């Protein structure tokens, strides 16, 4: 209850449905009426009343669920409706107040026939038996007559239709039956004994006039019969008291349970007063129409829906007749049948017509539907007035006399409605090939790839250059210094040699940028002692020359010696 009070507001409009469990019943045989209210919270049960109908509240259920994130709330109110006399009774639209507004249920019709003759007296005191209930003595051709096939079983018998899912078979010919809904199980007292009862409901429709004989109907069942101590089998079943010395043993038995016979007089439909558009509908019907959209343009289709609702043989109900209007091109309707009870006697049959306006028009065609009312024993023609609609645009009707062939079930040829004025302009260079199939697309992709690679390569080159600029400068310097070794100037030769020691060290050192003196380089590198001595002498000689100005000439042999020393230095690991 708390959860319900916390529900978010229900935004959708309330949807209200009312239906009867069966559309036909017999006097004093109750049927169930359900009123379902969706998207609204109604606490008090709606008041239901009908002439000659006793209505009792049977229960109420509520349901809250989330569908695709949308809250959905529904209440179902159940009533038992028991008719007190024979006839066709209407349960008028039931008012339901929701948030200050009053909504109404759909009108319901209940056909009540006289109470079935009591066949129980004819049945011997058996553990199981069948009964065929035909509530009427006569009907018209095409009029569906609801019947019941009742199979009674003693309470101690376990039963199951065999084969499972099998429905009863009705002997006889000259009639058609409706599809069976699932059977209903009940308990009933017959001649003072309690029986479990399996009821199959259907309807038979006589196809020609005359006495329709139904010899019997039968259904096979698989039974588990209790075995008595005296002797097994059901012949002496009732000789035993239900509580007198039963055993726990059961006997399986496959039996065919037959019902009594029955008959009904099928009367022909009267010829007198039969409307021209009568298509075979027998029952009580109502007619409603709607149009969508209510505003349209010439050439744009609108859907004109015609609903036939009521009680009768909906399988014979054909599309209603639409008035001829040159302004409308009428196409055959799509049909949809919504049963309102389990047998399908009460239903809504909807015909959705596609109407294509050929000219500006202000209303839809009128609709007529004729049927035979078996209660009144006369033909009835229902008429629905044209619905207002606004169609704008220029007429595309031919200037010659309009075709009269546009009836409700006749489709006209498409060229007259289609815009067949050919285009004179030709847009060139369209192709079914998508860009994936075009060469230029892949060339552009290639260019984009190359561009990206080129930028990457350029960037790598720049960084590589930046990384190796120091070493390159040192190598350039080394080449220049070697040239200086050939100089006649002793100072230049000694300076070049000293610098070459440093340059070689820097080139081969991973930290080539740092500053180092030739003396440090010689001491840091692992070289042989004679070579180290020679190198240090060379460095000292240059220092003497530069800082102490002690000049000593450089002979050609000295030059060769310096070169060899430097080569040895460069070869050291």
């Amino acid at each position, binding site marked *: 209850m708390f959860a319900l009070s916390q529900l978010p507001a229900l935004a959708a409009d309330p949807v209200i449905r009312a239906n009867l469990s069966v559309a036909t019943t017999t006097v004093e045989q109750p049927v169930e009426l359900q009123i379902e209210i969706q998207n609204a919270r109604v606490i008090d049960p709606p008041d239901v009343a009908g002439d000659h109908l006793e209505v009792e509240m049977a229960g109420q259920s509520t349901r809250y669920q989330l569908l695709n994130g949308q809250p959905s709330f529904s209440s179902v109110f159940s009533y038992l409706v028991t008719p007190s006399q024979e006839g066709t009774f209407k349960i008028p639209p039931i008012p339901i107040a929701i948030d200050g507004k009053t909504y109404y249920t759909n009108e319901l019709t209940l056909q009540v026939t006289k109470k079935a003759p009591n066949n129980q007296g004819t049945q011997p005191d058996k553990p199981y038996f069948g009964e065929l209930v035909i509530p009427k003595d006569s009907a018209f051709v095409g009029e569906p007559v609801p019947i019941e096939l009742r199979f009674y079983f003693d309470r101690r018998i376990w039963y199951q239709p065999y084969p499972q899912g099998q429905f009863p078979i009705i002997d006889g010919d000259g009639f058609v039956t409706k599809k069976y809904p699932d059977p209903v199980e009940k308990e009933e007292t017959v001649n003072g004994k309690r029986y479990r009862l399996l009821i199959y409901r259907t309807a038979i429709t006589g196809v020609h006039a005359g006495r329709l004989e139904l010899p019997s109907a039968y259904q096979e069942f698989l039974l588990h019969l209790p075995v008595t101590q005296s002797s097994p089998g059901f012949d002496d079943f009732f000789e035993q008291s239900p509580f007198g010395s039963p055993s726990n043993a059961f006997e399986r038995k496959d039996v065919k349970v037959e019902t009594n016979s029955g008959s009904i007089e099928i009367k022909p439909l009267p010829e007198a007063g039969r409307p021209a558009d009568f298509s075979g509908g027998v029952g009580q019907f109502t007619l409603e129409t709607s149009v969508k959209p209510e505003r349209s343009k010439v*050439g744009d*289709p609108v859907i004109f829906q015609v609903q036939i609702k009521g009680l009768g043989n909906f399988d014979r109900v054909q599309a209603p007749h639409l008035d001829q209007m040159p302004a409308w091109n009428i*196409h*055959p309707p799509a049909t949809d049948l919504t049963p309102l009870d389990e047998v399908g006697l009460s239903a809504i049959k909807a015909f959705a017509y*596609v109407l*294509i306006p050929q000219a500006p028009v202000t209303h839809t065609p009128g609709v007529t539907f004729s049927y035979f009312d078996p209660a009144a024993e006369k033909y009835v023609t229902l008429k629905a007035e044209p619905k207002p609609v606004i169609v704008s645009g220029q007429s595309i009707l031919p200037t010659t006399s309009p075709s009269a062939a546009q009836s409700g079930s006749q*489709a*006209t*040829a*498409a*060229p007259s*409605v*289609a*815009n*067949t004025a*050919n*285009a*004179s*302009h*030709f*847009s*060139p*260079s*369209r*192709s*079914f*090939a*998508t*860009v*994936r*199939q075009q060469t230029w*697309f892949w060339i*552009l*992709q290639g260019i*984009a790839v190359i561009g*990206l690679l080129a*930028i*990457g390569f350029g*960037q790598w080159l720049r960084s590589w250059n930046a990384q190796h600029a120091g070493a390159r400068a040192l190598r350039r310097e080394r080449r220049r210094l070697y040239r200086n070794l050939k100089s006649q100037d002793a100072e230049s030769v000694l300076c070049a040699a000293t610098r070459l020691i440093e340059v070689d060290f820097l080139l081969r050192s991973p930290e080539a940028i740092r500053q180092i003196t030739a003396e440090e380089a010689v001491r840091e590198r692992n070289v042989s002692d004679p070579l180290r001595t020679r190198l240090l002498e060379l460095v000292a000689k240059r220092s003497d020359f530069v800082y102490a100005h002690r000049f000593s000439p450089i002979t050609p042999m000295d030059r060769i010696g310096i070169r060899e020393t430097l080569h040895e230095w460069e070869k050291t690991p």
Partner: protein
Amino acid sequence: MGKNAVNWLRIGWLVLFIAVNNSNADPVLWNQANQEFAAGKFDQARADYAQLAATGNVSPELFYNLGNTYLKLDDKGRAVLNFKRALALAPGFEPAKHNLNLVLQTAGVEPDEETLASWFANYPDIWMLGGSIFFWVLAYAGYSWFVWPRFRPVSKIILAVAVPCTVVCLTIALFVGDGARSPDLAVIINPSVDVRYGPANGSRVSVTLGLGESVRLESERGAWTLCRTAAGIAGWLPSNAVERLVPR
């Protein structure tokens, strides 16, 4: 440098213009077909339009006119096929859409509702082109983000826009493929046709398709074609009951 760039742009534009206007359409044949149609010589008009279509230089108007011609010849199946071809080339081509819906309605077939998926499929080029453009913007912006730190604020904004756009466009492009212009797409040209479990008339029927329904062709065996319906049901149907949307 600036002047050179402008000159190159001019040359590029000229090449593109020539490429785009490389029309092989025969205006004489086109006009002749239109005149034949106007004069009510629909068989001749159909032959001329078909000849124009066979040159490969097609247009929505050509298929629209051809559809109208088939309509006049009361061949609703091929009329639907050609209206669908016109719409595959130009999804917003209203006259073709209008006539297609009307023909389907008169044939008792519910016209296809435009769903998001069908809308995506109508524009396969947009998703592929958009996806590739955003992808390359993403690639270049990502590269500059790594390489040039000073451009990172700009790269970040570009990446924030390009990543979702690339993902969306390429996912849709992958989903729709060639979309409404897929070479495997075909249209039922018979009022109704049974799709069977095997390539034989005696084979069990799995589903019945109506005029104008689209199927995807998978393989052919003799006079039978293996197809897959929009609902995903695979089966065989007679080859003469179906025609490819993309003319061969």
